[in-house]
């Protein structure tokens, strides 16, 4: 799935496998590639067949799924929507990423009980359903008392996927799915858009197929994950892809080796992925008797209350400490937070607040509530405390200046407050989750160059409050985007299940105003919910 020598880890199927070897008709030509607006004649002249579909969603991950689900429930006939995707099912990329970052199906993901991508109402929540199904008072008590007396309830990955599968069947998702890769969407003279799909070899008579639609939804997910520059340099210079791995690439061989051989591992990063990787390393010690020594490298070591700018004493604009009304708990290096944003960004005060902010002010609030963080979980605290006591879990604070090989091992020159310290380890697991620029994605790059799209204060795609891509309007048509590519807009928390649903609701609302779908008033909404419960088609 991933080219180990690439600088970016992009968890999508290799696009080159979709390109036929020999030149056949119906391909893009220079005139098309250079024009920001296309006429029907230009596309026809290139021999590209045109398919008319009012609404297409590009990506085919959970963002596309949730949006399609919403519109289907709002009464859009299945014949009017298509999903253009290289994925076989909506949770394919998500499941891959969670699995390699150590959340296999039986483990719990970091997501709220009521954020259900398979249920637009969020009722019954995952937790309530699990508590009732298993008649488990502990789950129900947890839901009642979270986060005061219990850790936040979070659903099991496997349950999420099973429920998504059920909903996919209910709404006939598979019949909407058209396999292929999309790299270009251009505005059409006369309104609407052309979306160029490259189908898998042999699936169509021509190399490309054009979807002519009034509405386009872009939900292509993370543009990619980058390695830290020094790690990438080491990997390419020493041709070593075994000992230095990213948490988001398959790296089971590391754990296998650790169980057989007492080794030292350097874990880099202070977020949820680092927590997961540490849990796996510590679980393997408990279950399989691995003799792993863990060196945990933090760039920023959180000692107590903090915000997105860091510890109390760290510099922040306007100077001073964290605000009494804006600080979170932390300690032992970590900043603690239940989910990847303060919870109210998904519906409460912070959501309402950010919706009103522009430019600099918005970027400032994003910064203040941001910062790397992880949930405080009883089991993780127990494992780390044991590790500290027994001396096999140690923290270092600093950055890596240089890395050299020493036989099978790697010497990291770590710059700390006390000077440069050499740390020799067997493996390095990078959990820093550095995200690539959106222009690394060919479709997004094309939208920025030819589609009229622009960047927001955080550098991602600039979307309006209704998730319409600002600057891309074409006649009566509209282009929307949701997910990670829209981070930094009027709504934070876009790259989460609930965020995708918030976006889907805004898109549905806008489309309802345009007359493309029905309004989900109390009656229709309730009727549709009963259908969901019964498992019958919308």
């Amino acid at each position, binding site marked *: 799935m991933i080219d180990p020598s690439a600088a970016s880890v992009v968890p999508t199927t290799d696009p080159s496998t979709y390109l036929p070897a020999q030149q056949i008709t119906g391909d893009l030509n220079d005139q098309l590639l250079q024009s920001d607006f296309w006429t029907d004649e230009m596309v026809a002249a290139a021999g590209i067949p045109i398919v008319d579909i009012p609404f297409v969603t590009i990506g085919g991950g959970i963002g596309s799924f949730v949006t399609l689900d919403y519109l289907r429930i709002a009464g859009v006939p299945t014949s009017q929507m298509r999903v253009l995707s290289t994925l076989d099912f909506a949770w394919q990329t998500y499941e891959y990423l969670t699995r390699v970052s150590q959340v296999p199906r039986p483990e719990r993901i970091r997501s709220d009980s*009521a954020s259900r991508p398979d249920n*637009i*109402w*969020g*009722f*019954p*929540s995952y937790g*309530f359903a699990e508590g009732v199904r298993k008649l488990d008072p502990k789950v129900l008590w947890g*839901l*009642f*008392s*979270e*986060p*005061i*007396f219990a850790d936040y309830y979070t659903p099991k990955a496997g349950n999420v996927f099973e429920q998504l599968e059920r909903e996919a069947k209910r709404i006939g998702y598979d019949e909407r799915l058209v396999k292929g890769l999309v790299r270009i969407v251009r505005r059409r003279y006369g309104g609407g858009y052309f979306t160029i799909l490259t189908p898998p070899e042999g699936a169509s008579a021509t190399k490309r197929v054009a979807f002519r639609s009034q509405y386009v939804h872009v939900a292509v997910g993370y543009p990619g994950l980058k390695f830290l520059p020094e790690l990438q340099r080491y990997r390419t210079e020493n041709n070593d892809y075994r000992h230095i791995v990213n948490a988001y690439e398959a790296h089971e061989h590391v754990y296998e080796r650790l169980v057989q051989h007492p080794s030292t591992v350097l874990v880099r990063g202070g977020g949820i992925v680092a927590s997961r990787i540490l849990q796996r390393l510590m679980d393997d010690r408990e279950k399989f008797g691995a003799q792993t020594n863990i060196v945990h490298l933090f760039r920023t070591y959180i000692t107590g209350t903090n915000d997105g700018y860091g510890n109390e004493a760290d510099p922040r604009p306007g100077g001073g400490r964290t605000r*009494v*009304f*804006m*600080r*979170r*708990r932390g300690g032992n290096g970590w900043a603690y*937070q*239940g989910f990847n944003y*303060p*919870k*109210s960004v*998904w*519906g*409460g*005060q*912070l*959501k*309402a607040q950010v919706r009103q902010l522009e430019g600099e002010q918005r970027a400032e609030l994003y910064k203040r509530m941001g910062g790397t963080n992880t949930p405080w979980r009883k089991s993780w605290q127990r494992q780390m405390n044991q590790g500290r006591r027994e001396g096999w879990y140690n923290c270092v604070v600093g950055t890596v200046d240089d890395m050299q090989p020493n036989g099978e091992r790697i010497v990291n020159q770590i710059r700390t407050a006390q000077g440069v310290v050499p740390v020799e380890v067997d493996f390095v697991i990078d959990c820093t989750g550095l995200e690539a620029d959106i222009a690394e994605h060919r479709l997004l790059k094309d939208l920025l160059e030819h589609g009229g799209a622009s960047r927001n204060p955080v550098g991602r795609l600039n979307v309006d409050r209704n998730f319409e891509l600002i600057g891309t309007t074409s006649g009566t048509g509209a282009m929307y985007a949701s997910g990670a590519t829209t981070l930094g807009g009027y709504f934070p928390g876009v790259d989460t299940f609930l965020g995708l649903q*918030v976006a889907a*609701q805004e898109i549905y*609302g806008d489309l309802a105003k345009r007359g493309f779908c029905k309004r*989900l008033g*109390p*009656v229709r*909404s*309730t009727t549709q*919910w009963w259908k969901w419960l019964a498992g019958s088609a919308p």
Partner: protein
Amino acid sequence: MLPTLNGRIQTRIFMLVVFGGVITFLITPLLPGNDDVDLGFDGDSYQATYLILLTTLVLGIVWELIYHGIQQFRWEKDWPTMFGLITIVNEAALVWLLVDIGAVPGIEEDSVPFWAFFIDFSVIWFVIWVWTNGPMRVPFIRWRFFGGRIV
């Protein structure tokens, strides 16, 4: 819940008017009396229970301001599920005090039996708490994403 101040007040009014109104109508004749007072399907009893509901609504708006203030100390700016239930203690205590000393206009001192008040208040509170934490999301699909605002 993830309420904004506006959403809190709107939800409070909606819930007490709709659920409070209906439940009060149904439950009043069933409430227990005591040696001095008999409750039943009559104007005096309904006057008492509906005035209790109205008092809860008016004081509730003040309580929401206080809760909103407390919420500001929370990083998440959320209002945990449990808080929604346990705030019955302070709210019911205040309303009972006012009812019992005859401070609510239209309700005379010692005219409402304690257990009648207790059952009336608890049933309404519990139903509203349950509805707020789940089923409300079904008919009002935008409600949870807009801080509890209904309009």
